[in-house]
């Protein structure tokens, strides 16, 4: 049995010792312990070093609000986690933990020099210190700040753990399983509602775990607790979730929960997730989160051994651990008196109870007297001593506002209670208003924006009886709001320890307040002096004070510090607290792992990669892929020894000389069907469609209302009332949405319907002078001759026995066809074409070759040669506008003054002076490379390739007044500091007459 463990107390399992390590040393705790309780049982209070001053720090709380005892935990390779709260981490056999922010050791930390230099680290020191000289920023200041910004080491290895997600729907979600939460759950569950109860701790019960002496309905608290938990667990409509934190409260009663599944287990089986993120949609939410105890602010209040009285009570009752042999109590609330009594009754010698109040309930005084505990009322604390652990506290009487002579009290722990702050973080997430209650000196829930009820200490109530009653009422209210009947349970509570207290600013002192290290925010090392300095330096709003001092900005979000900081700031400003404001709490309630938020989206499941039916063939052939929107597409097909340039040059040559085959399945496809289809097409696209006969197709151009190019593609008319529209790969969903938007909001009268068929079809493009020779023998049901099936035709027929929509179109400038077959046949057709194509040296090509071939022809790529500010005229495709049409989307904008103004950026070709030089896409273009910097840039390169067909480089560019500069020489600065001269040309580089399309 460890030195500070009290036999027969606590919920820990004395029969199950558990070994773990802290900073390399082996410790033994018991099953059910947290790291904090186990270390305390071994007499260890020192668990970390302060963030800024590296002062020794001990555990302060017993819960998730812990600001000091932040440790690194290692569960295995890649399973290191920094900043784990020692008060929440359960121990298990083999757990390895370490303290943080110390070097060379926790007990001797050189960084503690900062404590001597504390005057340099006052509020706003970042803003003041790092201003000058400017040249110091990159090399000195930023690296320093980065090193100092944030506690703990980031993990460096890939996290091997699994993380899971679930959706959950329930009638009533109850956050907190203390007396109010449980009473709410019992009422709601007995009323037949589906109920979920969550609690961040491993044990359900909340305050009841720390108050075993209370009697409820004739049962001890713990007997009552276990019987009620058993009742709830036995109900099919109830789900009890321990180790589960409600991290965020979002719109329409969506609450995010993070459930820890395995951080308390030695041997985790395969496939078990470490954490599970629940997205709960609740009909009613009941927040029963209790209250958080406020520290006292005085010099030396951060020394190890100084902690919250309520935490000591929890360590005593829940874990059977006394936090010291000689505790002293420093309080302004009755609750800490009971802690003193409980510790005394457990065998501790209580050094004294020091209360800042003068009027104490006689009953408490009597109880203290009975135990012969010295009481000092109307006193303040002004200092503590002890290097790594508190050894004494200095207290002084306060009479009529003046601080009297000091007295030193020896102790090994200081248990403080500066009142209680209702925990309303989640309520704050909903943007519900928090109203200042002047009597309770607390912010309490005001106007609600969600179907939420707050019960118990969360709305300022005190005592088990009040909490039970309020919880039962909240459960009944929730049932009422759900339209259900309820029976309101009542609870008879005896031995309840009700009480009152006050809250205050930093404690008065007889010493210089300016040199007091009276901490408000333990995690960010903010003192009362810092807050007063911020006010002196002009900060008026608490939001400014917070950012200037960093008070409440650590990962604990100021659970302990916010109200103390606000009280001190309001005192410094001479204003009432509500006039100074309140900072906003934001999700997550407590630090949450990235893994939990990412869920299943990691490794191979990180993000969807859409693949075509022919993708598997490309993989087998060793294709190199590139991402295009959510798809991956074969980029090029290198043969052994080929680099990208060689492969692309070969693919280009083969296609221009004989036959290339290309997987175009990713192109978006939309079926536009109905008697008004042609009218709809006329309104959506710039082109005229009325005279396009069935069996023919046409290049279609889509603008936005602003007149700028949005998308393009070839569109075939299958029947009078049916169009097969193709879109760009990335534009498929966007174009369908845009069409639906117009159809549903502007033209609901049109009898036309849209269906995405992108994935119904697998599309194979065949290009090259031998394209028809390959296809014709395989086609049934369509005369393939040039006379019957000329360029820009479409037909339904069979290809290699597969039902098909066959287009004669070309995106290469060569004789070209696109075969669409039902997706399941895509690969089979491809393989048949590859076999049949051997006679012509058929060459599979990828997107890079496709890009080169189209650029040689001056065909644009939406999003590459256009950027959302390019009109059809700018792009040189004004011919695609149906001039006679009364209207189409974007038509009016094309007449706007700035659209028809001269000097707009226009798409032109560029031929570099050095034919071997391939310009960089995105490179800027200038008139005179010798002009002083910054140079006037008149455009940029949009597409640039090596053209195998032309034996030289080609490029396209958007250039101001580009059409009028044809023949001019422009300059493109290069990365090496030089520049490349290039002549402006038209953008069709190859076969400008289009003869190659017309192969007989």
């Amino acid at each position, binding site marked *: 049995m460890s030195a500070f463990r009290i036999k027969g107390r606590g919920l820990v399992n004395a029969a199950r010792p558990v070994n773990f390590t802290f900073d390399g040393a082996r410790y033994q705790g018991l099953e059910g312990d947290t790291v904090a309780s186990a270390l305390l049982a071994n007499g260890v209070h020192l668990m970390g070093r302060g963030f800024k001053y590296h002062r020794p720090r001990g555990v302060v709380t017993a819960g998730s609000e812990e600001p000091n005892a932040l440790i690194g935990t290692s569960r295995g390779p890649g399973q290191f986690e920094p900043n784990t709260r020692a008060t929440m981490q359960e121990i298990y056999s083999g757990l390895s933990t370490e303290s943080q922010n110390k070097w060379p050791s926790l007990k001797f930390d050189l960084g503690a020099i900062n404590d001597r230099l504390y005057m340099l680290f006052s509020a706003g020191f970042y803003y003041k210190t790092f201003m000058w000289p400017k040249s110091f920023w990159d090399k000195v200041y930023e690296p320093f700040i980065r090193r100092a910004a944030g506690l703990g080491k980031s993990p460096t290895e890939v996290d091997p753990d699994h993380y899971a997600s679930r959706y*959950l729907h329930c009638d009533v979600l109850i956050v907190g399983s203390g007396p109010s939460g449980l009473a709410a759950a019992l009422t709601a569950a007995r009323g037949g509602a589906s109920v979920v109860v969550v609690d961040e701790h491993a044990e359900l019960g909340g305050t009841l775990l720390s108050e075993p002496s209370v009697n409820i309905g004739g049962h001890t608290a713990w007997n009552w607790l276990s019987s009620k938990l058993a009742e709830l667990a036995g109900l099919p409509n109830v789900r009890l979730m321990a180790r589960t934190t409600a991290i965020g409260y979002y719109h329409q009663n969506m609450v995010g929960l993070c459930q820890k599944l395995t951080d308390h287990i030695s041997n985790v089986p395969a496939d078990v997730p470490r954490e599970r993120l629940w*997205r709960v*949609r609740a009909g009613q939410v009941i927040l029963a989160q209790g209250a958080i105890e406020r520290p006292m602010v005085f010099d030396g209040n951060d020394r190890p051994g100084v902690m919250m009285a309520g935490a000591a009570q929890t360590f005593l009752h829940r874990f059977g651990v006394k936090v010291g042999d000689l505790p002293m109590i420093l309080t302004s609330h009755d609750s800490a008196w009971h802690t003193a009594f409980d510790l005394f009754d457990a065998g501790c010698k209580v050094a004294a109870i020091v209360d800042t109040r003068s009027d104490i309930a006689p009953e408490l005084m009597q109880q203290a007297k009975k135990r012969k505990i010295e009481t000092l009322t109307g006193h303040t604390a002004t200092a503590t001593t002890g290097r790594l652990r508190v050894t004494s506290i200095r207290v002084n009487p306060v009479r009529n506002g003046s601080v009297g002579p000091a007295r030193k009290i020896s102790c090994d722990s200081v248990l403080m209670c500066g009142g209680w702050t209702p925990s309303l973080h989640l309520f704050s997430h909903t943007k519900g208003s928090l109203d200042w209650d002047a009597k309770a000196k607390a912010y309490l829930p005001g106007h609600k924006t969600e179907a939420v009820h707050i019960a118990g200490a969360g709305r300022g109530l005190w005592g088990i009886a009040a909490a039970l009653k309020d919880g039962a009422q909240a459960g009944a209210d929730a049932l009422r709001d759900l339209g259900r009947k309820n029976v309101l349970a009542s609870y008879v509570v005896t031995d309840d320890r009700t009480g009152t207290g006050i809250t205050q600013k930093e404690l008065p002192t007889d010493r210089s307040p300016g040199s007091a290290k009276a901490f408000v925010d333990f995690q960010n090392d903010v003192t009362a002096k810092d807050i007063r300095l911020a006010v002196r330096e002009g900060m008026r709003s608490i939001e400014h004070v917070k950012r200037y001092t960093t008070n409440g900005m650590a990962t604990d979000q100021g659970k302990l510090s916010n109200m103390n900081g606000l009280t001190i700031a309001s005192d410094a400003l001479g204003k009432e607290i509500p006039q100074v404001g309140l900072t906003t709490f934001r999700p997550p309630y407590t630090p949450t792992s990235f893994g939990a938020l990412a869920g*299943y989206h990691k490794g191979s*499941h990180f993000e*969807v990669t859409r693949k075509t039916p022919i993708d598997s063939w490309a993989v087998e052939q060793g294709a190199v892929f590139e991402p295009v929107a*959510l*798809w991956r597409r074969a980029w090029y097909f290198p043969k052994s020894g080929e680099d990208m340039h060689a492969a692309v040059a070969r693919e280009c040559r083969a296609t221009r000389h004989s036959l290339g085959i290309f997987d175009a399945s990713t192109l978006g496809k939309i079926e536009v069907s109905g008697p008004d289809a042609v009218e709809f097409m006329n309104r959506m696209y710039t082109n005229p469609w009325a005279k396009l006969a069935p069996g023919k197709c046409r290049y279609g151009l889509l603008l936005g209302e602003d007149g700028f190019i949005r998308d393009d593609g070839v569109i075939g008319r299958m029947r009078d*009332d049916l169009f097969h529209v193709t879109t760009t790969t990335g534009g498929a969903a966007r174009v369908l949405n845009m069409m639906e938007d117009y159809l549903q909001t502007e033209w609901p009268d049109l009898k036309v*319907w849209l269906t995405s068929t992108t994935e119904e079809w697998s599309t194979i493009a065949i290009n090259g002078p031998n394209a028809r020779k390959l296809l014709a023998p395989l086609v049934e049901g369509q005369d393939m001759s040039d006379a019957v099936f000329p360029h820009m035709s479409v037909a339904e027929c069979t290809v290699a026995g597969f039902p098909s929509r066959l287009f004669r179109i070309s995106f290469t400038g060569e004789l070209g066809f696109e075969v669409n077959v039902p997706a399941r046949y895509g690969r089979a057709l491809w393989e048949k074409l590859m076999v049949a194509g051997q006679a012509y040296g058929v060459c599979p090509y990828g997107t890079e070759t496709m890009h080169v071939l189209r650029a040689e022809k001056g065909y644009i790529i939406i999003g590459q040669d256009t950027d959302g500010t390019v009109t059809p005229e700018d792009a040189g495709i004004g011919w695609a506008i149906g001039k006679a049409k009364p209207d189409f989307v974007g038509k009016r904008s094309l007449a706007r003054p700035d659209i028809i103004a001269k000097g707009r950026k226009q798409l032109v070709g560029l031929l570099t002076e050095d034919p071997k030089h391939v310009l960089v896409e995105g490179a800027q273009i200038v008139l005179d490379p010798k002009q002083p910097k910054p140079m006037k840039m008149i455009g940029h390169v949009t597409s640039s390739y090596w053209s195998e067909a032309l034996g030289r480089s080609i490029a396209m560019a958007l250039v101001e007044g580009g059409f009028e500069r044809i023949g001019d020489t422009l300059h493109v600065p290069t990365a090496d500091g030089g520049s490349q001269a290039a002549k402006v040309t038209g953008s069709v580089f190859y076969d400008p007459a289009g003869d190659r399309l017309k192969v007989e």
Partner: protein
Amino acid sequence: MNARVKLFDAVAVTVLPPVARLNLRLRPADIATASKAFGLRLPIKIAQGATINGRAAYCLGPDEWLLHANESEQAVIVAAFNELREKTPHSLTVISDREITIAIIGPRAAELLSVACSLDLSRMAVGTAKRTLFDTAQVVLIRDGADAFRIEVWRSFFPQVRELLDIATRELASGF
């Protein structure tokens, strides 16, 4: 391996063979005519489904139905609607190959779906269908029984959905 066997009693994920799948769009006034052509009274409430003689129709939107039939009947159905086209304007689009269908069957089927389906499945009636999201993929979710669902997902999203169902199945089997 015991857990694995037990798991397959709890929920089984299987890929179903292809069906004739069609997207029907028409004005509500023409429902009766279309019902006749399809040989099944088209449901009129969104999410409702109707099944008869191996044919099924699910109302997915105010003017949208998902039709299912045996593959061998696809051509007949297309022809029947083709007859209507003149007098009853509509759109019938074959999407048999657009989607792949996954069956999720077993006492823990709904729980398995809850890993990535945000719907309250306890409120989804047997025989209904909804277009919804599964993880980040658009799907049509069909409920065939208390413990039986189908997911129809676009072909290129299928591997992602299938992978997640496999991961989640192993997770359920782990007992945590």
